[in-house]
């Protein structure tokens, strides 16, 4: 599980490729890549001696790639609506009667420049070159986020 950025792919924004052995792993890695556009050390979220916040995410879609799109979008939403940066701890994806359902638990903190080195704001996940494909050793997502 991990991610890498693709430099000079989209000059004004950020493009990354995330990998995982399972669907859940690639979803978590993709969000971590997006989070890394906004702060330097996403793994520090929820580990400081400040008030931790937990949020539970429940989304569904008919296709897996749009499920990933909605997943990243949901976490971007918390950043603006509640001022929260969240790290996803657990994620479960199931197929129920032709629809993919995702349940995730996330932990994080309020955005505070005193606690985080802030980088660029992720405005949105785009459909530019957006893909989620199954590979022999797992899953791979290509995502461009608008900064």
């Amino acid at each position, binding site marked *: 599980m991990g991610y890498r*950025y693709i430099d000079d792919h989209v000059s*004004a924004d950020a493009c990354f490729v995330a990998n995982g052995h399972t669907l859940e792993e690639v979803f978590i890695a993709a969000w971590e890549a997006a989070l890394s556009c906004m702060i330097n050390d996403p793994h520090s979220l929820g580990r400081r001696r400040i008030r931790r916040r937990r949020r539970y995410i429940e989304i569904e879609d008919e296709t897996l790639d749009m499920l990933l799109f909605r997943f990243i979008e949901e976490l971007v939403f918390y950043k603006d609506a509640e001022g929260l940066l969240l790290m996803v701890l657990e994620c479960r994806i199931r197929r129920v009667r032709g629809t993919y359902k995702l349940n995730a638990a996330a932990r994080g903190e309020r955005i505070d420049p005193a606690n985080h080195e802030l980088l660029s704001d992720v405005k*949105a996940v785009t459909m530019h070159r957006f893909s989620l494909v199954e590979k022999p050793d797992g899953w791979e997502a290509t995502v461009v986020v608008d900064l």
Partner: protein
Amino acid sequence: MKPFLRKVEDDLWEIPVSYKKGMRVPGRIFASVSLIESMDDGVFDQVANVAMLPGIVGYAFCMPDGHYGYGFPIGGVAAFDTREGIISPGGIGFDINCGMRLLKTNLTLSEISGSLIKLVDGLFSAVPAGVGGTGFFSVSRDDFLELVEGGARWIVRRGYGTVDDLTLTEEEGCMEGADAARVSDRAIERGLKQVGTLGSGNHYLEIQVARREDVLDKKTAARFGFTLPDQIAVMFHCGSRGFGHQVASDWLKRFAGEGSVPAADRELACAPFHSELGQGYFNDMKCAANMAYANRQVILHRIREVFSDVLHRSPDDLGMTQVYDVSHNTAKIEEHEYGGTVAEMLVHRKGATRAFGPGMESLPDLYRETGQPVIIGGSMETGSYLLAGTGARAAFCTTAHGSGRKMSRRHARKSFEGKKIINGLERRGIYVRTSSYSGLAEDAGAAYKDIDEIVSVTARAGISRPVIRFTPVGSIKG
């Protein structure tokens, strides 16, 4: 030089319809030889993809600051017949009605030199910037619904600004007919706390000086309010914040599912302008545009407050009047002449500025002779420009919007250090406050194209004419 490009004239290049199957019209790019040679290959493809959209009139254009985006290139301009043409969220962008606002003062550089640090620090406190920044301007949900219908006019009615501010804003600060009841709850929740905030990325607020030698057209500069040597101005760049981003995201998903999706690029999903889908997006886009006008109006008010507090004089006494507010990410219904007839068109501008010329009806009386002020923002290290619109028919009265990136954000972050940039700027008399040193490095001057070259191309091509080149002396970077 790309073998498929045809030189139409100096600074204007054509991509013929034979370049890509499905192009309905040619593409046209305003650029010097050096700018066109440095453009990403993706720009040409994206211009060609835009040229395939139904109802496009004339050409798919790209401005000299154009670079690779998604859907339209940044710097992309296309007009569509309102009866038979489409609307595409990918032709407007995620930051709906991102734009520039400029106000003048009657102060000179020597008069503020001793107060510069206090002014920048005051502005940095009063205008929140950076990731997820929330504003001091508190509104209820009901108020917010009125705000996105009324734009800057609603803010002025609440006592934050003057009627003159509205007169000197595109659309007089409000796109009419916006119905907030149709906007998603999620968009409202994302935007509710962000009125009066700058955001991050390349959004900034600068105190700038119009040095005597940089006033390029004295007569027009005087009409725009600049008559003093080394006169101080304030320029800022921001948009509709999380509200606009969510509106764009909501509709991108709907267009991808229900609209017409070109094989070339899902970001170019579109719908007939008069379809339910097209009108639904256009309504919400107007709400987002109004949020951006309101946002910039609140920031303008904060700037006046800070100058007044620090210098102990009223904003009126300081001559803090707005020069103009321009949008560079919108779709607007306009009348243009093409092929000998005047018709109503929906002009998409994504990273491109409207540049109405002398005599055009929708301009305020003050600018009827000169053409509208056009504000082209550059990097904090290289300066910015005030120009005048010429109303050139080419590109449907449109010109450039900024410097245009030539280096990716990550590449810039690896190549430059934010603290070093700040120290270097301080040695040049430019005081900078930022919410992010890394973000500052991403927007280093060397990460952008040469703004002087871009402005020169717009002048030679006749799509706008330079009036003043501004140099920053104080900068807040989101």
